[in-house]
């Protein structure tokens, strides 16, 4: 076997230029594929991550029927025992209890319908980094009156820190919810929906406002290992199956998931086209190499080399070219991937606006997962192996006399 490797290796360097061109074609293919795929997967991960962090969590626990009918009447009763059980479930890293509903907010002559989120300040910050979005005033603090509103809403209402806004809504079991709340902080979201139609207040304040003490509409759960989503969901579902419903982000963010799946298919289609181009590039080289060496193959079979051993040499040559190209491609693309993983591309102009309309921040983050890098390498290697079928066919059908004559 060592001898065959030696022959294959030397054959590769017989025509250095051709070998370098083939390796370069694999290299650039891998480079393009990895950069493209890293950006695509990074964007998907980011979309899921931001949706999960800002709203749903990886898993949510609701009162039974809440997801179908998002009414406070379907909220769950939250107590220390339930909190303990959720926190002690394996793989749960943190939880954010929330009470969410709708209200009209009014200041002066301006009124707007908004979503009110009652939350626990430090837990919310830990999950979604809300405090980092503060641009004016103070962040929420536990059991303190005052609300946090986004910049867009503040501009619409023409309010500033210290101003009092009127909130009017419907509370638990239809009671009227009304309050006068001081704006204590202003936050900035890049997503237009969030920047215009949200209001945060302390959980206890929200429970009082909606006359629903001890009630929550959801407990958002973050996980240590999102890969164990379904096992954790199953464990949480067993806590109180009669009164609680447990949903994964995939069930709650169906539109997002469908968008990702649709976009992923178009991405895979592009990858497929790239693979076909690469495949033909490699096939072209192997074809030339085979035609050039027909006479040599004929001689080797004539002097007693079994055809399968000859095919093995060609296979080794193809695999070595493939591996060198793949490794070089990975080495070339890694600095870019690592850099853009830590410093996502900031989008500007119309592109940024278009992205923000989808409730996303205008950045293009890259993913850095060994899995997809390895997968692309394996795919290109498989393409190389498929391209090697041609010389196998030539060798198996080789008429020795004709080959020696160069026919």
């Amino acid at each position: 076997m060592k001898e065959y490797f030696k022959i294959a290796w030397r054959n590769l360097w017989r025509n250095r230029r051709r070998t370098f061109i083939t390796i370069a074609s694999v290299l650039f293919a891998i480079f393009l594929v990895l950069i493209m795929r890293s950006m695509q997967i990074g964007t998907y991960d980011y979309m899921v991550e931001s949706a999960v962090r800002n709203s749903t969590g990886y898993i949510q626990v609701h009162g039974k029927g809440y997801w179908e009918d998002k009414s406070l009447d379907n909220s769950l009763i939250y107590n220390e025992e339930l909190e303990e059980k959720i926190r002690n479930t394996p793989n749960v890293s943190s939880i954010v209890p929330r009470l969410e509903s709708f209200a009209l907010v009014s200041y002066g002559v301006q009124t707007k319908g908004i979503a009110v989120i009652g939350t626990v300040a430090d837990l919310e910050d830990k999950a979604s980094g809300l405090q980092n979005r503060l641009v004016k005033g103070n962040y929420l603090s536990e059991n303190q009156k005052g609300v946090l509103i986004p910049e867009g809403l503040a501009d619409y209402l023409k309010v500033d820190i210290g101003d009092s806004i009127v909130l009017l809504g419907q509370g638990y079991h239809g009671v009227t919810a009304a309050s006068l709340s001081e704006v204590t902080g202003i936050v900035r979201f890049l997503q237009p929906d969030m920047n215009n139609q949200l209001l945060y207040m302390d959980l206890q304040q929200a429970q009082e406002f909606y006359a629903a003490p001890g009630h929550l509409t959801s407990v958002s759960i973050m996980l240590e290992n999102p890969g164990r989503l379904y096992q954790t969901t199953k464990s949480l579902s067993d806590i109180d199956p009669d009164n609680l419903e447990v949903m994964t982000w995939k069930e709650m963010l169906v539109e997002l998931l469908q968008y990702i799946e649709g976009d992923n298919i178009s991405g895979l289609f592009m990858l497929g086209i790239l693979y076909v181009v690469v495949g033909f590039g490699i096939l072209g080289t192997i074809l030339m190499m085979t035609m050039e060496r027909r006479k040599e193959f004929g001689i080797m079979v004539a002097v007693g080399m079994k055809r399968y051993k000859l095919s093995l040499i060609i296979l080794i040559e193809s695999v070595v070219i493939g591996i060198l190209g793949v490794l070089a491609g990975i080495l070339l693309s890694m600095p870019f991937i690592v850099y853009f993983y830590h410093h996502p591309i900031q989008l500007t102009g119309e592109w940024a606006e278009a992205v923000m309309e989808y409730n996303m921040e205008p950045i293009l983050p890259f993913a850095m997962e060994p899995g997809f890098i390895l997968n692309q390498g394996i795919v290109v290697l498989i393409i190389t192996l498929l391209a090697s079928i041609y010389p196998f066919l030539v060798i198996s059908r080789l008429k020795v006399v004709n080959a020696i004559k160069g026919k």
Partner: protein
Amino acid sequence: MGIIITKDLRKIYSETKVPVYALNGVSVTIEEGEFTSIVGPSGSGKTTLLNMIGGLDNPTEGEVHINGVNVTTLPSGKLIDFRLHHIGFVFQSYNLIPVLTARENVEFIMQLQGVPKKERAARAIELLESVGLSDKIDNRPGDMSGGQQQRVSVARALASKPRFILADEPTANLDSKSTAELLDIMLKMNEKHKTTFIFSTHDQRVMERARRIITIEDGVVAKDEF
């Protein structure tokens, strides 16, 4: 009994409207230790006959027996093995493996035979010395002259300890000096080791040294002179 016996060999090419008889009933017997030239004008069928004897081509009719084995009936895989162990080849254009050195080219055949590394290395050096190439052992074919390459191919052909060596116009690309040197080497091998050599040639210099000349004309044996 001869080590090579051909019985009524025919090779008919039917690709054209009029069939071409490259061989039209050739029966020859070659004994061990012969130094035989197969001669004839271009297109007479001498290379075709050599290819049939070497199992590189199949006859349309007839049989080739080597050491009592009818090689015309051997399946492809067994035929390759048979060639490896019984027949040495010297080609007109040397046809060495370009990426291997002289020693590695000679060793290659033994490696295919499964000869242990030490043994084959020693034999390769011995063979290259016997063809006068002790100073070119680590040269690749591209770094050697035509005559030197042809001498390597003789060493390669001898490496497998074959029953006979088939040489298709081995001197066609060589100058007089290289031809004389090559013939000396082959005659020495023939005399010393009783290796059977069969050439196809129209080189007068080869014919002069041959002990038997089989003349082929229009696919039949026209003369057989000892």
